[in-house]
């Protein structure tokens, strides 16, 4: 079974802090994704990566950056957390772009005070 893990299930940070969310997948998937999910807004793509050191902006990249130094690991960085970044963050991976069945991690519920 594909396993996608995220570094924290729950996280509480203060406004202005730098926040790191980490995601690791163990199935040698090429593509990895970061989404945020908010009530009434559905799933929104923040960034994705189709190869090591490669990244592309999704629909809502502002206020976020990402890093993919190794194939299995994809990190989401909030440079200066703000209260409007309070959300559920979901990481996902898929084998290749041509077979886009995405497998999700358990999610990180981030609260910014």
């Amino acid at each position: 079974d594909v396993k996608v893990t995220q570094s924290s299930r729950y996280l509480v940070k203060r406004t202005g802090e730098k926040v790191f969310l980490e995601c690791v997948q163990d199935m040698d998937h090429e593509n990895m994704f970061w989404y945020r999910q908010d009530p009434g807004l559905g799933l929104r793509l923040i960034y994705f990566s189709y190869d090591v050191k490669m990244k592309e902006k999704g629909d809502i990249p502002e206020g976020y950056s990402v890093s993919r130094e190794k194939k299995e690991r994809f990190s989401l960085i909030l440079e200066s957390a703000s209260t409007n970044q309070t959300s559920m963050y979901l990481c996902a991976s898929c084998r290749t772009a041509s077979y886009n069945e995405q497998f999700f991690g358990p999610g990180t519920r981030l609260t910014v005070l």
Partner: protein
Amino acid sequence: ELKVEQNPLFLSMQEGKNYTIYCNYSTTSDRLYWYRQDPGKSLESLFVLLSNGAVKQEGRLMASLDTKARLSTLHITAAVHDLSATYFCAVDDRTSNYQLIWGAGTKLIIKP
């Protein structure tokens, strides 16, 4: 721009009944995915539909894809309480590096 619409967005039904969730999308795509999300949890892949006429079944759930009509259905047969969840469909957007375009989700509540 590819858009994906699900309906209904909310469905409350009795155990033992049948019902169908619809997923319409706006441009050509031949790959569609169904996911389930339990409250407070992450998304779980249910079905992958890769071609016109594809039909997949798992227990009381059956999904189908009609690429000509740009429509997928998720049919629930003799619903049971354990199927209560939010169901999402998603479609490959080949014009955008194969990103998935997500429907808004259908929240399904099945009452005993």
